């Protein structure tokens, strides 16, 4: 339990594809301003095109948001948007590593790769959240987080613009919680309360 009191020991990774940007635009403003845990957002995006994305998401939150470079440290209360065309990985010394290896299931960044690496590094202190999308990325990775003792949340398919991705995770039985956007916000804000206990 002593470990959990250090907020940096927990990592929240949010994966999304088609239809998830709108979810983030609604979710981020609902997070409390003193949210203590780092959040990493992994979106399927077109490289070199969505350069405005960091700015757009940054406007929706009172937390600090950045697109990290290789070996940037993960800091409590920051939101990190995984850069386009790289996989994002986590080091045990609290740094981010980027990786330009092969696409996984046509995706780079791959949500599965990010979830797996988060589970390797943060184990039971990992929270994986899978949002709207049109492909099967993320559900295997959620399974890895779950096996490591972490928590997994899947967006309620009826509330998703494209329900295929969350539905895949539910079919594979890797979801601990199935929540709409308000529910996800409430869950995260609840984590902020337990951090202070």
């Amino acid at each position, binding site marked *: 339990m002593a470990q959990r009191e250090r907020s940096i020991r927990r990592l929240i990774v949010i994966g999304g594809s088609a239809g998830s940007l709108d979810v983030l635009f609604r979710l981020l403003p609902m997070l409390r301003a003193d949210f203590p845990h780092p959040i990493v957002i992994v979106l399927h995006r077109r490289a*070199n095109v969505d350069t405005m994305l960091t700015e757009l998401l940054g406007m929706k939150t009172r937390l600090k948001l950045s697109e990290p*470079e290789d070996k940037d440290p993960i800091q409590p209360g920051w939101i990190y948007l995984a850069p386009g065309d790289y996989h994002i990985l986590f*080091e045990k010394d609290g740094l981010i590593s980027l*990786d*330009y290896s092969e696409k996984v299931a046509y995706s780079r960044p791959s949500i599965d790769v990010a979830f*797996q690496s988060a589970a390797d590094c943060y184990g039971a202190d990992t929270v994986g959240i899978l949002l709207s999308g049109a492909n099967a990325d993320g559900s295997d990775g959620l399974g890895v987080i779950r096996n490591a003792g972490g928590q997994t949340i899947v967006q309620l398919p009826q509330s998703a613009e494209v329900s295929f991705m969350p539905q895949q995770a539910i079919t594979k039985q890797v979801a601990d919680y199935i929540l709409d956007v308000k529910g996800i916000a409430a869950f995260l804000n609840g984590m902020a309360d337990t951090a202070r206990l």
Partner: protein
Amino acid sequence: MGLSLTDEQVDELLSDVLENWGYDFSDYSRASLLRRLNRLIALDNFPSFAEFRFRVRTDRDYLKRFIEEITVNVTEMFRDPGFYQVLREQVLPAIASRPFIRIWHAGCSTGEEVYSMAIMLHEAKLLHKSLLYATDLNADVVEKAKQGIFPLGQMKDYSENYIASGGTQDFSSYYTAMYDRVIFKDWLSERMIFATHNLVSDSSFNEFQLIMCRNVLIYFDKQLQNRVFHLFDNSLESLGFLALGAKETLKFSTVTKRYRQPGKEKIWRKEKDLYGG
């Protein structure tokens, strides 16, 4: 998902590879190594860590595969056209007046960037007085780079990148298509020198006006990155350029005070050496 190695298992494996074969991966990024190792174990269907370890320790042919799969050899021609445009419009003109131009592609992989550079040097009428050193720790990819043969299917993307970087020629004039592959013209590779070089263990071997090392350092930990920056610093003329990948930075390094970054691309210029050394 299959087997996932523990930290201790990764340590054991890396110390075997160093002791038996002389390759030192101990300062590579652990997160990336773990992913590559787990992937290789799954690809080659090893039922246990012990069997994987035994094979790596004892089988010289398998070690070749191990090196090739553990290192990442994904690269493109004219990747990040905006970066190449700055090379073309600012960096090459800045070194054009030198009687002789030496460029080092450190971690050249299969050579796509070296051929991109040769095309730009040719168009700037500098190729005849340039030498392009292309090195990688992996002998097999260096051999591929030397051949200058690439898949035909990628030429459409590469041609678009080339045009977006400011290229004005017909990109297909630089190669000859054969079935599903293309071979780049002989005269493009005449000024290239290919060799194996390990950034972890080998030292500086020449002085350059430009060092290209893009998306190589992301696979190293911070300490090793810093060591490699010192190696580059020792290999770069005063006022020479160092070009890194889009998400790599010199800012954490102890050599950073001798460099400035003129624009937003990941290109740093070494300042004039005030002490004349």
